[in-house]
């Protein structure tokens, strides 16, 4: 189980919900959920790499590893 975890490590995970044939709505396909790094890091180690104060203010965290942002996975990317 743990090894599998290591191999498939990603910040965004997906699963496919069951879609009933009687569901009037079209299936959404994949459901997405984020698993940020802090849930794997049981206790924060000291001396992690930091953002500059200005970057930290905009990122919402002082430590680079904890920076986690939301991106709509259903929206097609333009770039």
């Amino acid at each position, binding site marked *: 189980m743990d090894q599998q975890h290591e191999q498939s490590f990603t910040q965004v995970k997906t699963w496919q919900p069951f879609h009933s044939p009687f569901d009037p709505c079209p299936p959404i396909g994949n459901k997405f959920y984020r698993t940020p790094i802090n849930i794997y890091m049981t206790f924060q180690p*000291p*001396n992690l790499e930091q953002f500059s104060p200005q970057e930290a203010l905009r990122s919402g965290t002082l*430590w680079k590893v904890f920076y986690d942002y939301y991106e709509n996975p259903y929206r097609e990317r333009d770039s």
Partner: protein
Amino acid sequence: MNKKLDAEYYQLLEQIQAADFVLVELTLYLDTHPDDQNALTQFNQYSEYSRQLKAIFEPRYGPLLQYGNSPVGQQWDWGSGPWPWQV
């Protein structure tokens, strides 16, 4: 009556915000890591830095804190805008 705001006002205010955010983060960190000397040193540095920034900011643009926590000078302008959330 509104205070006059120039580019320096925004620059200083952002520096204060950024420094204070570092202090918030380090406070939370030090709560769980009270023996981390590096973090403690950094906290003290930023605490001093934040105090210096506010010492520059307040005589020019008015007090940031009330109830005697900031010098108010000769004129009472606490009620004159704009407020921090309006800038």
